[in-house]
């Protein structure tokens, strides 16, 4: 019994870094769908062209996003879908509202 518990503890200790890494960085590349791999690859190439400061900002925001509870992340995804679905005029209006809202904060 003790031996089993010890083995379980060792396995847990071995698995913990991988779990932590997944929590921090998300899914591994192999788990992405082909469409997601395309999107990630294209965005990666755009990312490489950004100045270093912008890259760091993105990484910081990504960590904020990863640290959010799953429901909150889901809410943001839904908001993004809504935003993408807006006609160009309404989207521009939203951006104008965002600047106005940001200025009032």
């Amino acid at each position, binding site marked *: 019994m003790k031996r089993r518990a010890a083995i379980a503890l060792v396995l847990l200790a071995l698995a913990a870094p991988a779990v932590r890494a997944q929590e*921090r*960085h*998300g*899914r*591994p*590349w192999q788990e*992405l769908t082909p*469409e*997601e*791999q*395309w*999107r*990630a*690859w*294209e*965005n*990666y*190439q*755009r*990312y490489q062209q950004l100045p270093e400061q*912008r890259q760091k*900002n*993105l*990484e910081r*925001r*990504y960590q*904020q*996003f*990863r640290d959010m509870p799953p429901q909150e992340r889901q809410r*943001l*995804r839904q*908001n*993004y879908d*809504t*935003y993408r679905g807006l006609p*160009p005029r309404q*989207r*521009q*209006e*939203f*951006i*104008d*509202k*965002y*600047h*106005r*809202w*940001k*200025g*009032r*904060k």
Partner: protein
Amino acid sequence: MRCQRARKWMTAAVDGELSPRRRRALDGHLAACAACRRELAVTERMLTALEGLPMEAAVSARLEQATLRRVRLAAADEAERAPASRWTRWLPLPAFALATAAVLVLAIGIVRRTGQVPGAPAVRPAPKLDARGVAQAPPSLLRPPRRFAEAPPAEPPAKLAEAPDLFVDMSIIRNLDKLTHFEAIQTTTLDDEPATPDGLEPPSNG
């Protein structure tokens, strides 16, 4: 503030990344500098156009049907012409596969190169007029061509392999602030203060 610094801060301002103090300084500069106002308007339009880029190319039902019809015709043609010898009995199958692959590659190539689905009507939006009545460049001119057409590598670079979701969700991450406060932003009113001609906010010096 000099124009060089103002331009350095512009993308951060568009993304809502600028601190309120810097934002005020930038607004102060923009109020006095028409060239930087124009630059900011272009930056905003570019970033909006970038966000509007499709994640994937749509293929119309018409193109799909036409492709399938051509493949069927090619296969039937091959079957009719197939000689009776033993090894050539297998010819229709690779011919069918080749024809399918060729038509698909052609279709994807057309869509990716032109951004236009063959057979779909080309819609050209009327040029937008800004507050001064000057025609702005149509979105098609602002939208940069899709430069990254090559397939992702089997072995991704270290950065991409380390955090692929960063790049999958980059559009969300870029707009994190907007999306987090989406509802509050939507209920914000625009009509209490008039915007400046460039669509910029008036400088807030308070």
